[in-house]
């Protein structure tokens, strides 16, 4: 049977992708960011998944205001890289896992989570920057990816509680898949940042670190936070952090297993306008 082996969490700032793509990773400003991912690249080599279920948000690229799905699962064989206005990032196309994606869709929809099924979806920096951070710059991504897009752009966005419950359903779905696949669930976005208005540039280091502490040790409690707390304390775009609760909900301890092992934790301010947070949690075997 397939199983969820680990979860990873990271910010997905577009400027990080630009720094990589333009060969600026050795600048001191960016070294402080990329240094926090050196461990993670080695860790991923040693703990290579077959599939990553990658939770991210689309930033007005695949979805305009015409259609706004709350939760969209990518069931296609492959996904092209979006042109966000700067031209597409020069990274490999994303190879999906249509069979597992369809299985997860069927399982969780029958558990009352009404996903939107998407067979054509260009993927933006929200998905590709985390891949770059953990994989570097390979010719092809070293695993298949199921893109899972969450609406955090137009309100109402899903609650942290709903995201956490959905993560639990995704774990059950993975574990009922016959093939013995190693699956990781990644939650991306955040941490504190605000990109708009006179309050732009807001960073809340204490709040972010408390979020990381609670994500590790008290995810069920953390899932109760209302939206207003995210936007007031972590900035209007800090709301992206609800997506981390999907990945956390997929960990075994939430279903009564042992606590996960914290393989890595990193926090740095800033990358462009944003606080960078990163965490890797391993399930006990």
């Amino acid at each position, binding site marked *: 049977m397939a199983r969820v082996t680990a979860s990873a969490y990271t910010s997905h700032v577009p400027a990080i992708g630009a720094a990589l793509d333009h060969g600026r990773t050795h600048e001191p400003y960016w070294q402080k960011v990329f240094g926090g991912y050196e461990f993670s690249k080695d860790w991923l080599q040693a703990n290579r998944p077959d599939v990553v279920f990658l939770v991210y948000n689309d930033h007005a690229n695949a979805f305009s205001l015409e259609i706004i799905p709350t939760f969209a699962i990518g069931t296609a064989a492959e996904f092209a890289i979006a042109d966000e206005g700067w031209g597409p990032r020069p990274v490999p196309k994303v190879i999906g896992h249509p069979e597992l994606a369809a299985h997860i869709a069927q399982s969780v929809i029958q558990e009352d989570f009404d996903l939107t099924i998407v067979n054509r979806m260009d993927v933006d920096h929200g998905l590709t920057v985390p891949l770059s951070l953990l994989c570097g710059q390979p010719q092809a991504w070293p695993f298949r990816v199921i893109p899972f897009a969450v609406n955090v752009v137009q309100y109402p966005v899903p609650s942290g509680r709903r995201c956490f419950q959905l993560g639990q359903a995704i774990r059950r779905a993975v574990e009922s898949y016959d093939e013995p696949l190693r699956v990781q669930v990644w939650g991306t976005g955040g941490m504190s940042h605000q990109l708009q208005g006179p309050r732009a540039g807001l*960073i809340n280091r204490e709040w972010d670190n408390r979020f990381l502490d609670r994500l590790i040790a008290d995810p069920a409690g953390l899932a109760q936070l209302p939206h*207003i707390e995210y936007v007031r304390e972590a900035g209007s775009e800090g709301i992206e952090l609800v997506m981390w609760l999907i990945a956390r909900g997929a960990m075994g301890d939430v279903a009564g297993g042992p606590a996960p092992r914290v393989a890595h934790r990193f926090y740095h301010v800033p990358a462009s306008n944003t606080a960078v947070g990163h965490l890797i949690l391993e399930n006990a075997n």
Partner: protein
Amino acid sequence: MALDKPYRDIPGTTIFDADESRKGYWLNQFCMSLMKAGNRARFKAGERAYLDEWPITEAQKQAVLARDLNRCIALGGNIYFLAKIGATDGRSFQQMAGSMTGMTEDEYRKMMVGGGRPIEGNRYRHEWEKK
């Protein structure tokens, strides 16, 4: 019953909800059109003429022409959509975000490197009104 909007009392912040989205629908859809290289070229060649192809208000057109992002947001624009204009102009997200704060580009960059805008004094509207 009206929509509950507890976020109204956060200073310097517009939450992109259904009311904003309705107001800014065509402004944002115009921005989406700039994802295509051909449309970016046409917009650059004649901004006013390109804007006139869209059913957006005169005030929205003026805000776009002036690159006044705060005004665009007040008129229903969302930053991820407006970023397409910035991309067309070759501006980074940091330049765009900084342009809304009343700070110079350099001041904003220094604030970010110094740890960002602090949360203290920036949670509630009344904290800004006292200033």
